[in-house]
């Protein structure tokens, strides 16, 4: 703006002002905006403003074939794309009456847990960066890159794998892949003490994150919170245990909870989930060589496939919470309606608006990252 165009306005003196945490902000994950009303440093009201990442996915999916949507679907949640593919494939399998063979189900479990590892490593990094500690962010992104290398070896794509199709997976695992994955898990497990020293038990972070964005269990249930955020209030609900899909009922794993309900507890729950994912992956690596069979059940020609009429609601535990797909088919070669229920729909909008009230300005970014709110899921 040129100086001659500036026109001063007289405002009544007050401590209250309104701030636009715009879409381009280092404290906001992705493009998401907040309008906060502040009294000095303290937030009085917060209002979420989404839509910066809107692509109209549900409309796009109605115009493409069933198999073409597999390419679209991972792009709904960018840090954690695999649960989207798996959930969509499970929905079509339920409608179409297909049953993925057992080897494919174990491979799907492996991908889901690898994606959970990658997403949690990214989430740690993001959370640390909002408190001003940038080293865990570098470590988290670097370790995540090693997981992405495994993804690239398995599927060909670092981030968007497009590896699951209704009926199974596209290709079998390469030779020696399980060994390299096992080495990676050993490496990650050996890194955990370093992460603890730097980040999880570091008093600088603990004091900064304690009692920030505190949620009680009743509030969490009332606001529809799921995933690690709900487990951080003490309720052990996990879609893998309570609504099992794939072969999770044959794998043993714990569901970690923490009683606190604040940002620190959410972080500790994610750390514990990281360990549990490593545990699950080790079981998969042990079992997978002995499960032989096809990796795909026969499906008709995908370019001319009329899925029978029906509807299905499938749920999957993504790293952020409960992910659900409602797919309606009227017997055509394109979906009639696909509704994506992302976990961040609750977390980034209602929960964040409610938790931000009463907190300080510098904590808003920390609350958002600790809730692991993913704006592309809100906007679709």
């Amino acid at each position, binding site marked *: 703006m040129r100086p001659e165009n500036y026109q001063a306005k007289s405002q009544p003196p007050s401590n209250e002002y*309104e701030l636009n945490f715009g879409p381009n902000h280092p404290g906001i994950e992705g493009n998401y905006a907040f309008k906060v009303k502040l009294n000095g440093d303290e937030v009085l009201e917060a209002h979420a403003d989404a839509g910066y990442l809107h692509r109209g996915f549900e*409309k796009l999916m109605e115009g493409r074939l069933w198999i073409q949507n597999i390419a679209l679907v991972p792009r709904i949640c960018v840090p954690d794309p695999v649960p989207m593919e798996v959930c969509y494939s499970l929905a079509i399998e339920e409608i179409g009456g297909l049953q993925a063979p057992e080897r494919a189900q174990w491979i799907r479990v492996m991908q889901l847990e690898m994606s959970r590892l990658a997403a949690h490593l990214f989430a740690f990094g993001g959370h640390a960066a909002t408190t001003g500690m940038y080293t865990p962010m570098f470590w988290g992104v670097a370790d995540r*890159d090693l997981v992405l290398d495994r993804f690239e070896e398995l599927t060909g794509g670092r981030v968007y794998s497009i590896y699951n199709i209704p009926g199974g997976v596209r290709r079998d695992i390469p030779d020696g892949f399980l060994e390299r994955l096992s080495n990676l898990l050993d490496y990650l497990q050996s890194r955990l003490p370093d992460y603890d020293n730097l980040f999880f038990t570091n008093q600088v972070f603990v004091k900064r994150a304690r009692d920030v964005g505190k949620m009680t269990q009743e509030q969490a249930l009332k606001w529809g919170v799921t995933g690690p955020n709900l487990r951080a209030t003490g309720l052990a609900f996990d879609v893998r245990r309570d609504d099992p899909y794939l072969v999770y009922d044959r794998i043993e794993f714990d569901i970690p909870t923490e009683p606190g309900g604040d940002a620190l507890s959410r972080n500790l729950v994610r750390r514990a989930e990281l360990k549990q994912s490593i545990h699950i992956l080790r079981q998969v690596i042990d079992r997978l060589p002995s499960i032989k069979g096809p990796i795909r059940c026969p499906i008709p020609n995908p370019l001319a496939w009329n899925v029978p009429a029906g509807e299905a609601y499938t749920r999957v535990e993504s790293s952020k919470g409960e992910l659900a797909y409602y797919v309606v088919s009227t017997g055509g070669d394109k979906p009639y309606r696909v509704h994506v229920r992302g976990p961040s729909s609750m977390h980034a909008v209602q929960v964040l608006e409610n938790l931000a009230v009463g907190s300080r300005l510098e904590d808003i970014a920390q609350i958002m990252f600790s809730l692991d709110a993913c704006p592309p899921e809100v906007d679709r």
Partner: protein
Amino acid sequence: MSTIDNIPVRHETPVAETGSKRSNPLAHVFDELVNFCRSRSLFMLHYCTGCGAIELPPAMTSRFDMERLGIQPMVSPRQADILLITGYVSIKTLKRVILTYEQMPAPKYVIGICSCTVNGGMYWQSYATAKMLKQYMPVDIYIAGCMPRPEAVISGLRTLMDDIESGRADSWKKYFQNYDYYLGNQQQLFGEHWQTPTDIIAEAHHYELITEQTLGEHTALLEKHQKPLDALEMRLTGKEKQKT
């Protein structure tokens, strides 16, 4: 994995140099020195508009280190050189991106990462994304991919650095020279009352880049309704409204 030097990149055809007013033969040495230094210390404004934003942290952090090339992320557009458009641009974001672009001081460079900036990409049927980024602001380099690997991003940045050093990357001048065209596309998408706080025509006068394509019917339309923009009015709840 491919190395940096064997990823094929495409160059724009070189733009003819605008005539320099100075006739001193040593003046171009200073220009070359300035271009050399400028190409080695670029600040990028990481406006993560879409999916491609997830591959920027790997490119910035230690594995594919971008900082060794001198490129560093910067939070404010007023201090940034490069505007990285990582991914598709929804219409709502495009308004903010244009505002951000106009806030950046010249010389500025725009890099369009991912195929969605080129010709719509995966979301070409979508009613909410912009298809060709170069209709709304001039783009220097495109890095195609869905999404491009960090090595590809760094390779594109190296190409941009070479272009800056040789003087080819002057698309920011095109914005002033063809402002009517860009404003026309923006008005077609956002409505006739689209305006930004930045006075582009005055800046074009300042940089002496006015051509006959700068002013036209669209800038006349802009002039008719241009008024100083009010401060952001926020309606948080129905109960309290801002007093301005």
